[in-house]
Every structure is written in C-alpha cells, then in structure tokens.
C-alpha cells in the first residue's frame, strides 16, 4: 500500500503531464489549421498541372520519343520507395502506419525478386526502417530545420530523385505518405512518381493545343515540375496528417490523464479515511483498556 505522500506525489505528476499534453494538443490544433490552409491553397496548382500533363501525356505517350520520366525505363527491376514521415514523435500511429505500408511493400517487392532502395524524409521513419532495411537505405532528407514546408524543399527532393533517375539508380519511384482525410482519419497512401502516373480523369476533356516550343520540349520541362509538385502535395498532406494525428493522440492522452487523476484521488481519499479510522480505533481501544 503506497503511503499518502506517495499518492499525493503521483497525482501531482499526472496533473503536470496532463497540462503538457493539453498544451501540445492546442498547439497541434493551431498548426493543423495552418497546415490545412497551405494544403488547400496548393491544390489549384497541382490540379492544373495534372490536367495539363494529362492532355500532353495522352498525345505524347505513344510516341517512341516520349521522355523516360513519362514512359519509364522499360524495366521494372529497381524500385525506389520514398517514405515521408515526420521529424517529431508523439503523434500516435502516424509514423508507424506509413512505415508499416513501406515495409509491407518492400517485402513484397523483394520476394518477387526486385531490388528495393529506400529514401526517407523525416527522422522518425528512418529510425524505424533502418532496423529492417539497413542495406537498402540510399538517402535521407532532413526537414527539421524548416518550420514550414516550402515548395523549395520539394524541389530539392525532386532534384535529388531526378539525379538518381538519370544516373540509372532505379526504374520505378513511389512516394509513401499519409493522406489527410479528417482530423481523426489519416490514410497511409502510395503515389507513383516515376514513371509519371497520369490521372485518367484529366484526359476526359481533350483540348487540342498548339505547342510552343514543341510538345517534347514542354514535356521535358513539365515532367520534373510535376514531380516536384507531387512531392510537395505529399509533404503538405503529410504535415496536415501529422498535426491531426498528434491532436487526436494528445486529446486521448489528456483524457486518460484525467481518468487516472480521478482514480488516484479516490484511492488517496480512501486511504486517508482508513488511516483516520485506524487512529480512532487505536484511541478508543486505548481508552477502554484503562
């Protein structure tokens, strides 16, 4: 039976934990709103990019001169998995769920005889993936110094990926991130980057364009940008998901701390009462003995 003093200390410590989780929840809520705003304002560009790309790709994909970024290398042997996770923990199952998806995919590819390379964005995913795929890690991007993710971050990553592609390091690249559905629901998803996945719905309305300069020149400029845009979208979705996941996790933590405080308080009061009763009995029996 813990002493009254011990119980009191524990209640105090849980109370201060609750204060911290409550504060983190509120910070996450504020950050979430900002992250959601930037995700929403980045959407028009990404959508336009997809529709322009869809238009161009449908007319250029069949020709033999189509850029490799669009048509692929013709092989399907080396896969680059880009795992986008967060830099900080305490956000529930956010990182684990992305890592689980990447791990399952990596194992599936290895079993079917393909080579897997992993590029990680964010410290948390790297820590977890390093254990199982130490040999497959080809790079890591650290975003911890950036408070807000800008397009430049995405471009740097895209440049890195493009350099690797040109160097013949991989045939297929896929990015794994968490799609933000709502505050309580984030869905780990995959998006193929190379060869570029063209949204078939964008091909619905075909416009016939004149191209200045030629189609292939435009494609050559457009594809790297489309890649950067897709990475940017993924990073923004990820940022919003991370804050959403953290908010939910911290909300739960706050509630659990509250429950725990209630329970401990009851135990504390009971033992206090028991101690008082015991003392009274001692006094009364002492008086009777006289």
């Amino acid at each position, binding site marked *: 039976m813990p002493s009254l003093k011990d119980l009191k200390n524990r209640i105090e410590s849980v109370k201060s934990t609750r204060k911290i989780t409550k504060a983190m929840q509120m910070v996450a809520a504020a950050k979430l709103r900002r992250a959601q705003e930037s995700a929403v304002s980045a959407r028009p*560009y990404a959508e336009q990019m997809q529709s322009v790309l869809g238009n161009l790709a449908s007319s250029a994909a069949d020709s033999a001169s189509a850029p490799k970024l669009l048509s692929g290398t013709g092989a399907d042997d080396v896969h680059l998995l880009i795992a986008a996770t967060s830099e900080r923990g305490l956000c529930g199952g956010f990182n684990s769920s992305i890592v689980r998806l990447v791990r399952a995919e990596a194992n599936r590819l290895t079993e079917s005889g393909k080579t897997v390379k992993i590029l990680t964005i964010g410290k948390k995913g790297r820590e977890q993936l390093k254990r199982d795929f130490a040999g497959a890690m080809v790079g890591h991007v650290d975003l911890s110094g950036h408070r807000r993710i800008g*397009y430049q971050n995405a471009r740097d990553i895209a440049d890195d990926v493009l350099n690797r592609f040109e160097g013949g390091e991989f045939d297929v690249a896929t990015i794994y991130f968490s799609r933000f559905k709502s505050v309580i629901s984030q869905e780990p998803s995959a998006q193929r980057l190379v060869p570029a996945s063209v949204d078939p719905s964008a091909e619905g309305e075909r*416009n016939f*364009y004149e191209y200045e*300069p030629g189609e292939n020149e*435009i494609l050559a*400029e457009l594809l790297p940008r489309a890649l950067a845009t897709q990475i*940017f979208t993924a990073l923004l979705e990820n940022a919003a998901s991370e804050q959403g996941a953290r908010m939910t996790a911290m909300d739960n933590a706050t509630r659990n701390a509250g429950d725990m405080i209630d329970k401990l308080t009851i135990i504390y009061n009971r033992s206090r009462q028991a101690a008082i009763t015991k003392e009274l009995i001692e006094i009364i029996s002492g008086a009777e003995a006289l």
Partner: protein
Amino acid sequence: MASSMRFELVTPEKSLASVLADAVDIPGAEGEMTAMPDHASVLTTLRPGFLKVRADGSKAEYMVTGGFVEITDSSVTVLAETVVPAEDATREQVARFAEAAETEVANSSGSDRDLAEKRLGEFRALQSALPR
C-alpha cells in the same frame, strides 16, 4: 463571342489571382504574345519576364521567372514557379535569380548547359530593364 476571359495565376504554394481579364501579355519562350478572348488553344513555356493583365481599364503586372501558360478561348492559366508583383520587383531580387542560374550553368553540361545559359541571359536582360 466572349468579351472577356478568366485569368488565373497560380504558384505551387497558392493561387494569386483569379479575375476576368480583357487581355494578357505573356513572355512566352518563343517571344512575347498577347492573349485575348477567343485565342486559339496554346500551351507554352514562360521565360523570365513580365506578365501584364488588363481588365476593365485597370492593369496588373507580375514578374515571373518561368513556368507554363495554358491558353484556351475563354481562359488563360499561368502556372508560375515564382511570382513577384512588378512594383515589388527589384534588381537585387533578379540578381539572386541570376546567381542561381549561374550556378546551374556551372553545374550542367551539353544541351542543359545551353538552356541554363539562355536562362541566365534572360535574367541579365530583365535586370537591366528594371529601374534602379
């Protein structure tokens, strides 16, 4: 016949403008062009330069560093990488872009190098066009 068209200016980070316009001057890769309503559908790349939008007598100018323009009979959509309102554009800013282009020239080779050099030249031209 449409008398005006929708002009949209979007960057990767946000949408900057979405207005009805009468005419838009575009610094296309193959030369300046002006898009007016009922223009033929064109898809072109941008070179560093000024984008001028005219609507109802008012006029807006933006400095762009590159990107794409999609012109249809009823809309002009500009997908630009970096946009600076013209009144805020300074020589120092352009100098920074030129510097980035310079490193690109130094780091590339072959046809990429030619492209980068061309870009650098365009930035230099833009720089001298701006008032001090």
